[in-house]
């Protein structure tokens, strides 16, 4: 009894003595809980606002002014920069090239990635080894990929034309021809990204319940039928994700077309000049920031438009099936 008495009373005395300090530290702790979360997320929001969001929005301001690299901000010109860009052929050529390269790369890339993922989804020996094997090109920089491939796709002494020559096929103008140059550039993009996409799809494939395949088997569905009737529908959300991300990235393509030849202007006749190359040429070639900003905003709107279109199309398809 006496033991417990002293044991109880001692802390009470102590508490009374330091009651102000306890109250203060409690208050501090409550403030800590209340304010700290905002403190922890603030670096992201502040820095993103300054270096990501603000420049993007400020682009609109620059685009309605005369603005040169050297002179800086000039007069307000309204939609003149947009009018100039939209009324001259380079923008439309760049738009055509960008979409052409994007389609030639994205469609085969996703189809091929599906095939690779389906094979990787089998019960392989040394799984990690094969998965790493398809991912290898991802660590090669786009600039390095382009320098290697633009050499292999050389019009005169390139490896590919040499091999075609051995087969008795006439050399292809990989740089001079519009479509051929798009195929070459799409090949570079796909070289780097197909394995990566395949691994994303593989992860989704492994989440498909195995019972579905068992049931389809019993119903007599073959392996191809299973792939199209089970695997593909089950992968739809992942496929949408892959399509949307490759749209956002693909429409901004710059590295590959910029380094496809030594000059970097997108070819003598703009065969492979993309929108971002055009943006760069206006801004840092002609030093006209107003027009470059107009192109940036137009591309921004195009990307949003295509993104929404993607979502709409996939929704209709989902409803239909």
């Amino acid at each position: 009894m006496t033991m417990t008495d002293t044991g109880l009373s001692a802390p009470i005395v102590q508490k009374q003595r330091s009651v102000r300090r306890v109250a203060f530290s409690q208050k501090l702790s409550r403030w800590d809980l209340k304010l700290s979360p905002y403190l922890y997320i603030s670096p992201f929001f502040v820095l993103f606002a300054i270096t990501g969001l603000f420049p993007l929005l400020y682009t609109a301001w620059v685009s309605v002014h005369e603005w040169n690299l050297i002179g800086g901000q000039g007069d307000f010109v309204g939609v003149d920069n947009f009018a100039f860009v939209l009324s001259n052929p380079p923008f439309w050529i760049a738009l055509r090239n960008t979409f052409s390269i994007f389609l030639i790369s994205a469609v085969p890339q996703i189809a091929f990635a599906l095939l690779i993922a389906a094979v990787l989804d089998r019960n392989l020996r040394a799984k990690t080894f094969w998965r790493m094997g398809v991912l290898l090109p991802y660590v090669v920089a786009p600039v390095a990929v382009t320098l290697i491939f633009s050499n292999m796709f050389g019009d005169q002494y390139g490896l590919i034309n040499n091999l075609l020559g051995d087969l008795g096929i006439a050399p292809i103008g990989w740089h001079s021809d519009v479509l051929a140059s798009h195929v070459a550039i799409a090949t570079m993009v796909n070289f780097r990204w197909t394995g990566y996409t395949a691994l994303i799809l593989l992860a989704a494939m492994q989440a498909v319940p195995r019972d579905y395949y068992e049931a389809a088997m019993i119903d007599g569905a073959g392996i191809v039928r299973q792939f199209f009737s089970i695997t593909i529908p089950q992968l739809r959300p992942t496929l949408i994700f892959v399509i949307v991300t490759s749209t956002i990235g693909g429409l901004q393509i710059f590295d590959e077309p910029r380094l496809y030849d030594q000059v970097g202007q997108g070819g003598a006749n703009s065969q492979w000049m993309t929108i971002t190359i055009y943006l760069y040429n206006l801004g840092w070639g002609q030093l006209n920031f107003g027009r470059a900003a107009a192109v940036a905003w137009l591309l921004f709107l195009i990307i949003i438009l295509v993104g929404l279109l993607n979502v709409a199309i996939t929704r209709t398809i989902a409803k239909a099936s």
Partner: protein
Amino acid sequence: MTGSGLLERRTTKRPEPHPVRSPARRRRRGLVNGQRPGWKAYGFLTAIMLGSMFPLYWSFLIGSGDASTITRQDIVWWPGGNFIDNALAVLADDSVNFWRAIGNSILVSSVVSASVVLFSTLAGFAFAKLRFRGRNGLLIFVIATMAVPTQLGVVPLFIAMSQLQLAGSVWAVILPAIVSAFGVFWMTQYLSQALPYELIEAARVDGASLIRTFWSVAMPAARPAAAMLALFIFIATWTNFFWPFIVLDRQNPTLPVALSLLQSNYFVDYSVVMAGVILSTVPLLILFVVAGRHLVSGIMQGAIKG
């Protein structure tokens, strides 16, 4: 005799249905990917792997030859002996400050991945484990910004960097990259399932402040995801070209910018260019050999295209 014979026959007959049924069962398992696939699958993957490696081999073929290799009509399939000479030529090229480029690439990639990991883990900890007003809305905002092509803000970013006297310096490359929406999303996802509330409460009961809790409880728990994030950001920064190309000076490049300068030299010797390609790729190849398995599992856990 007959009886035992009958009996014996019966016992041998009884398991008969099994061997008959089992091929069907095995086939079924094969179709649901239970069985080991045949040589075709391995053959296909081997072809893909050779295809992945060939361009690198080709760049080494040219990078180890001399200026004439590239204009030969017959294809040379074996490396020459000039790689070291070509690599030294790259490093000694006055128009391209390659040593500087190596240093800059290491500096930029390290600083960016360290800061992205720190800020992402901090924000991810708050989003995953702390309650505060506006949490859901702010998190949705973070996810939405992942789809914003911020690269298109280059014009004002360049104007701002020029006014801050930072154009040409590596800080112009580092500053816009020190936070990442993807990183915040990634760490939030990981911490919400990998860090139990009990651990945080235990630390709080022990009297740890929130930042102390973050540092000694959340950070260690976040380590696997943080390492993967660092890996992806490092690779993305190392290979990034567009913005560094715009903002950096010729004499102060990163490796991709240096490669582009090598190629645009007036007299371009492709064996030297390819030696440069090899030099700039080898560090990431080493990283790939060491940490490739983590890259694979990172992608399969939901890393997105950078």
